[in-house]
């Protein structure tokens, strides 16, 4: 059985360590915040200028001027801080963020990531993704293993324009957890009920 979105987020939550500063991307990565292990303290960083992001506000308490990078209303935990965009990206680029978990369109066996642009389609821009993948100490991509056409999103080489080169440490998908190593993709774990053969069949590059 392939992992559900929630199960993917749970698998990614196992990347968290006590005291980590973590930046979560939009989409499934956002759900990881729901699975922080009991008793573990982490600080969520949001690149628009917030360290110590809390849960969504209670209904009626939302503040238009307290938002995350997805422009969602959020809260600030006690001990949280706010700052300008240059300082926020100094945290990212300067290697002060321990872990970035973000979505992906393609990941290559050498750790290249494409997640910001599809030529010929609507252009959204890269936002903070290029800075995050070049600066975070560890980059984990959380995405479906295949695209809507059933084609693998894990490839020998990315076809889409890159977000970063050789930047991905681990890929967590609905089918498996896979590390990027100097020798290529290494299968770390299959989702419950999924075989190595099924993962290999869905992967566009050899698995170690």
């Amino acid at each position, binding site marked *: 059985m392939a992992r559900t979105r929630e199960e993917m987020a749970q698998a990614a939550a196992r990347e968290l360590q006590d005291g980590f500063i973590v930046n979560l991307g939009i989409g499934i990565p956002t759900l990881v915040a729901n699975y922080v292990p009991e008793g573990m303290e982490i600080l969520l960083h949001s690149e628009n*200028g917030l360290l110590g992001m809390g849960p969504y506000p209670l209904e009626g308490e939302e503040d238009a001027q307290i938002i995350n990078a997805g422009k969602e209303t959020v809260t600030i935990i006690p001990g949280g801080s706010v700052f300008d965009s240059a300082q926020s990206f100094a945290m990212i*680029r300067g290697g002060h963020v321990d872990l970035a978990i973000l979505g992906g369109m393609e990941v290559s066996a050498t750790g290249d990531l494409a997640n910001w642009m599809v030529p010929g389609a*609507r252009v959204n821009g890269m936002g903070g993704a290029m800075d995050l993948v070049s600066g975070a100490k560890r980059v984990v991509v959380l995405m479906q293993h295949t695209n809507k056409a059933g084609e693998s999103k894990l490839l020998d080489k990315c076809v889409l324009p890159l977000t970063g080169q050789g930047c991905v440490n681990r890929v967590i998908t609905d089918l498996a957890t896979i590390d990027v190593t100097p020798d290529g993709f290494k299968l770390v774990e299959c989702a419950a009920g999924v075989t190595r053969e099924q993962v290999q069949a869905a992967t566009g590059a050899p698995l170690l």
Partner: protein
Amino acid sequence: MKKVYENAEAALFDVKDGASLMSGGFGLCGNAENSIRELARKGVKDLTVVSNNCGNAGKGLAMLLKNRQVKTVIASFIGGNPDLQQQMLAGEVEVQLNPQGTLAERIRAGGAGIGGFFTPTGVGTVVAEGKEERVIDGKRYIFEKPLTADFAIIRARYGDAYGNLRFYRTARNFSPLMAMAARVTVAEVDELVPVGALDPDDIHLPGIFVQRIYRGTDYENPIENRTVRPRA
């Protein structure tokens, strides 16, 4: 030192066609709403706008796009801004996309008198095309140039007659950087307080970077994505 102006119309009296303009805000959060409305009313054209998103969902700077007042946009993320996406595809507006941290640092460099910087962001991507690449202590970097502008329009929570500003929560974002990088920075504040009311330690942006200040009114404070927890 007369920095206090009556309103947006008075403070933006000399913005002309073809001006370059930095506008603070992240999406619609922390926008200089009064100054944007005044520029829309004034109808100045062929503007170059530096902004993280250049408006969203038809609001904020998207008003200037709807009015066809914008020629060039320098931004990092334009998803959720259909006005800009359509005008870009139609070739009516030139859009230069920068990684968000590179955009922030280019503005900071512009205001700090730095002639550019080497960053690892964008190495090996289309962002690096045409830029100098250098290996420093074994790591690859690309060269990015500073950004400056004729005007910056920003919003802060508190300000005084010296132009000292204190921002509120995540409405700060690019605003203090843009204030440093513009020849004329026009700040609108929710509250104009007496000089001395802000403790020196609590001033986020010293007034040296602010040339004009006025009290803003009628804030809409739009929320793009209202996300809440239900009450038990």
